[in-house]
């Protein structure tokens, strides 16, 4: 067996915020009818959470589910369990108009924390990241400078950012630059 590694091997940078590559994460893209009871039960079995409402993330200790579009979820599971979870999910969804795919190795994940986290993210995304507008549990797909990205904010004030693995280096450099110690704007 080969030994899977994440895109940047846990690279980290600290400035007005701390940027860390989070390592390997199990991710399953699921498309289907989000109103279906069967799909809801399959998601619960795989992740331990109910299907989140629009633009929200539902988190459990081991993973969770993020609302990607009216017919798409991103399921987060432990990296080592993704194949088993996918098989169970596919079996549970037999007969439903749905599709689940393992996208774990197509993604990179970053954590962004610290006092300057909102400001760092706001520099590179066209999103209102003020404390009133962007609250814990919210999930947003958007553009991070020149690439697509998605992120959510957890109860601990930490942003988790998901992007394509092929642009992991770009996103890390982008966030590190936006978090440069001498770059504080103080807008939030």
């Amino acid at each position, binding site marked *: 067996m080969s030994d899977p590694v994440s895109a940047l091997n846990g690279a980290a940078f600290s400035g007005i915020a701390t940027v860390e590559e989070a390592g390997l994460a199990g991710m399953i893209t699921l498309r289907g009818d989000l109103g279906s009871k069967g799909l809801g039960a399959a998601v619960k079995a795989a992740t331990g959470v109910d299907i989140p409402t*629009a*633009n929200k993330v539902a988190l459990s200790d081991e993973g969770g589910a993020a609302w*990607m*579009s*009216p017919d*798409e979820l991103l399921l987060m599971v432990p990296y080592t369990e993704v194949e088993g979870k996918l098989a169970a999910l596919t079996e549970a969804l037999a007969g439903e108009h749905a599709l689940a795919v393992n996208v774990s190795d197509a993604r990179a994940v970053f954590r962004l924390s610290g006092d300057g986290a909102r400001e760092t993210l706001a520099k590179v995304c*066209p999103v209102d990241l003020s404390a009133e507008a962007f609250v814990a549990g919210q999930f*947003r*797909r*958007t*553009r991070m400078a020149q690439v*697509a990205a998605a992120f959510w904010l957890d109860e601990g004030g930490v942003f988790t950012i998901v992007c394509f693995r092929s642009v992991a280096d770009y996103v890390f450099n982008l966030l590190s630059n936006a978090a440069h110690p001498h770059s504080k704007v103080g807008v939030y």
Partner: protein
Amino acid sequence: MLILECPYCGVKAEESELHAGGEAHLKRFGPGSSDAEFHDYLFMRKNPRGVHFERWRHINGCGKWFHAARCTTTLEVFGTYSAQTLEPPQAIRDAVSAKRPGWSWRDLK
């Protein structure tokens, strides 16, 4: 700056999060139509100064196509609406009429 509210995810998306899809509500002329009809379908687009109906895609977001009614002169947005329609819903037409009485666009008034 143009901001459109995506009717599928509800996000108020800034223009750079969107992809412009050109004129809305085109009627397709394919096999069986005349050369002139096919030519017009393929090439002839409205480029009005004022009320316009367009297709947009929330490309760096939920990924869905939708429609927008807006003013090309002022960037004022009258409303956005579902892609699953052949013409603007009455609520959108009313919103345009409230701001631009006497407007017309192709066969719409």
